[in-house]
């Protein structure tokens, strides 16, 4: 329920143990390794420049493994459920890690082989495309019984080629007679013709070759774009044989790839193994290294120090020292919360982690977060759906990633609150119970609200929203008080918090004692005027206090006074902060009214027809409409709950700025496996 206390760690080990110690550190994942602040001297040097080469080899290997896995996934259709991304990492042990080094090189070869096989199939596929183009070009020539390259015989010359557009035998004869009157006897044959082009075979005497060629060229004759040494028909069947050979080749290669599927887990391990080594070599760069020893500096959570020191001294000849972080340093932040509050860590992290002197507000935030979310969504059925879906997902995927699990848990708790508020306001799919009973059963059963229906008494809910807002803001101020008190800034605690409590609280009570005010807001009671007077005085004292102390950072008394007045002006900030909580009403109404619109539309469409078909139409409209409504309003509730936390609540006490604790751990670099040693801790 708080920020973990951090200790600095200084570890000195023998260089021959360096690899082992680092691997052990990585599997434990408890220590964030810092860059040493010390300067290098004649004995100790920072880093190790020749490691960069090895690091690039590792990243190369990771790429091979990832590529190979991608190819495997494409080739072998493993059945995956749409929720498989929730499965999380598989479990592995340190022993597996150690024994993998024997398999490492072989697995890299496998990855390369898979890549090579894939390249070969891609090449073969490209070849097939090329051959298919040739086949297409050969088609018009099928009836020709000499090769396309045929030039003629001993005494004849042959022209094989195409003419644009459609040509007939007579037209070619006329062309030859007209353009080559001295061309001697020639024979033309139409091989095939289409409106676009005509394939022709022309034979003439060898001595008239040039003249006939010229005549043909005048008609647009051109040689075919392909060559064949065999008659086209034979050529094409040869090409087809080639295609089927290539296809066999591809099938072969693909089945070879599929055979590699048994190495899938090895490949995944390879990717993780080399990611870890990559990370580890990065850490080596942050060590101070001498000839035979090395130093490591970093942070470790305080509660881990004992077991860490114990295990280290059992395993290695190394010295370790833990000490409190020096005052001027800001240690990295690690939050620790129970299951109820831990989902807030992600929300907090999205804003900023606690800075120096700030507490971890997760637990308090959690209460308000679920409460506010529930009020904004405010429909029992929607809440039950949220709880059911998140509970099933969490139950089915026990090993899902921590962040995912937290998000689901957050929506589960929000679902509980939504259900609660839904019953309070009598909303179950809007007014579905009433509408269904009226449309289909002709009765007037309805779900009565436990408290009241907001649409009938919006003013009442609005006042309640302001009250919730006031409590939320005052809680924030309270945390501010606690933080100042803990830092021994007692004056700040009184000036910045107590005076504001007096002013805002006094004004609220004063308003409650004025009859016209309570009448406007429909509040059933009015405080007696004596209470109002007292509250007025308290508010006045608070206001004077704020004017006097608000500008205490300035020395000049005039400036101080002006600044004090300006900080009193902040009261408008409180007004707008409280008004901001009216979104609880607006968004809550939006959910229930739109749900009612959906029900009404469904009832109009389905109820008008009636009977079985009417019921089906009703159900379809009902399902589609409510799915849309739940999604859109969940988005709205989520965004605006965050806003109320970030802007109104945090504005009172929290500025953040902490650095996240990122330990040197296997879990940060692996994608597929998680080590048991880590899971335990």
């Amino acid at each position, binding site marked *: 329920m708080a920020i973990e206390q951090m200790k600095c760690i200084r570890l000195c080990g023998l260089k021959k143990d360096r690899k082992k110690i680092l691997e052990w550190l990585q599997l434990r994942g408890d220590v964030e390794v810092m860059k040493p602040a010390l300067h290098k001297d004649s004995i100790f040097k920072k880093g190790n420049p020749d490691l960069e080469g090895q690091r690039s080899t590792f990243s190369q290997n990771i790429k091979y493994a990832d590529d190979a896995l991608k190819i495997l996934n494409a080739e072998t259709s493993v059945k995956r459920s749409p929720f498989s991304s929730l499965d999380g990492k598989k479990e592995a042990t340190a022993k597996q890690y150690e024994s993998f080094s024997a398999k490492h090189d072989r697995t890299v070869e496998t990855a390369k082989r898979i890549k090579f096989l894939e390249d070969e199939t891609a090449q073969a596929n490209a070849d097939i495309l090329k051959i298919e183009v040739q086949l297409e070009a050969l088609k018009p020539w099928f009836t020709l019984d000499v090769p396309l390259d045929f030039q003629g015989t001993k005494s004849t010359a042959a022209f094989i080629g195409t003419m644009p557009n459609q040509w007939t035998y007579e037209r070619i004869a006329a062309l030859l007679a007209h353009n080559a009157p001295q061309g001697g006897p020639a024979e033309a044959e139409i091989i095939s013709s289409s409106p676009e082009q005509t394939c022709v075979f022309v034979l003439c005497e060898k001595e008239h070759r040039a003249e006939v060629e010229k005549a043909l060229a005048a008609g647009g004759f051109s040689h075919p774009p392909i060559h064949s040494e065999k008659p086209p028909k034979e050529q094409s069947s040869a090409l087809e044989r080639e295609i089927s050979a290539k296809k066999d080749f591809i099938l072969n290669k693909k089945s070879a790839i599929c055979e590699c599927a048994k190495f899938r887990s090895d490949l995944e391990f390879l990717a993780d193994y080399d990611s870890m080594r990559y990370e580890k070599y990065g850490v080596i760069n942050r060590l101070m290294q001498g000839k035979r020893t090395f130093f490591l500096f970093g942070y470790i959570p305080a509660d881990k120090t004992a077991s860490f020191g114990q295990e280290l001294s059992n395993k290695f000849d190394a010295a370790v020292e833990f000490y409190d972080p020096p005052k001027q340093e800001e240690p990295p932040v690690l939050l620790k919360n129970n299951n109820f509050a831990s989902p807030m860590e992600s929300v907090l992290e999205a804003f900023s982690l606690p800075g120096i002197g700030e507490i971890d507000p997760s637990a308090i935030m959690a209460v308000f977060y679920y409460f506010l979310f529930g009020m904004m969504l405010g429909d029992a059925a929607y809440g039950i759906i949220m709880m059911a879906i998140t509970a099933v997902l969490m139950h089915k995927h026990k090993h899902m990633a921590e962040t995912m699990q937290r998000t689901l848990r957050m929506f589960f708790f929000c679902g509980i609150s939504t259900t609660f508020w839904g019953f309070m306001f009598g909303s179950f799919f809007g007014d579905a119970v009433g509408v269904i009973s009226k449309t289909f059963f002709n009765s007037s059963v309805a779900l009565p609200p436990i408290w009241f229906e907001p649409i009938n008494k919006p003013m009442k809910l609005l006042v309640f929203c302001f009250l919730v807002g006031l409590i939320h803001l005052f809680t924030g101020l309270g945390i501010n008080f606690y933080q100042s008190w803990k830092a021994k800034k007692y004056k700040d605690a009184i000036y910045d918090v107590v005076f504001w409590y007096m002013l805002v609280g006094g004004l609220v009570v004063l308003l409650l004692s004025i009859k016209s005010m309570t009448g406007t807001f429909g509040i059933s009671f009015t405080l007696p005027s004596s209470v109002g007077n007292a509250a007025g005085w308290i508010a006045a004292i608070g206001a004077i206090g704020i004017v006097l102390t608000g500008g205490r950072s300035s020395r000049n008394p005039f400036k101080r006074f002006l600044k004090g007045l300006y900080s009193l002006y902040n009261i408008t900030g409180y007004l707008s902060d409280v008004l901001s909580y009216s979104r609880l009403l607006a968004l809550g109404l939006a959910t229930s009214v739109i749900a009612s619109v959906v029900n009404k539309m469904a009832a109009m469409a389905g109820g008008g027809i009636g009977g079985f078909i009417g019921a089906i139409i009703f159900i379809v409209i009902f399902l589609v409409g409510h799915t849309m409504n739940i999604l859109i309003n969940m988005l709205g509730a989520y965004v605006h709950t965050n*806003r109320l936390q970030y802007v109104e609540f945090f504005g009172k006490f929290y500025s953040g700025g902490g650095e996240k604790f990122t330990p040197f751990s296997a879990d940060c670099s692996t994608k597929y496996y998680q080590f048991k040693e880590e899971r335990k801790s």
Partner: protein
Amino acid sequence: MNIFNNLGIVFALLGAVLAALMPGIASAKGVGAAGQAAAGVVTDDPAKFGKVLVLQLLPGTQGIYGLLIAFITLSQIGIMGGSTTPISAVKGLLYLCSCLPMAIVGYKSALDQAKASISSIGLVAKRPDQFGKAMIFPAMVETYAILALLVSILSIGGVGNLHV
């Protein structure tokens, strides 16, 4: 004068229709423009889809608030179920006035929220870890649409109870 008095329901319906029309148009524009920006981000990194989708949808809520006001008005004036008592011209005009905050503020805020959304999509494209903050900027604009929604809801409810 008599004709004017019959126009009560027309004024009221005009209000309802404006509340649905104007924020609806602006939301459609806003979500569309934000969608273009979001699609650009997804071409680069499909993993950001979930985040940019949330940002894209933010200017869409005004259209829903408008629908909400239109629906409340329609059911109050008896066009969609409810009572069938005739609406006087004054009451009709009052309904029209009640719908205006949502219609006008909804229209303008959706457009401006879309601009903030687009910038936030750009922010998430470069720094996905800042999603929490990126979400807040457009949400700030929405506050005013929510306030307008609130005023419209309260005044429509109030006008319904008036005897004029």
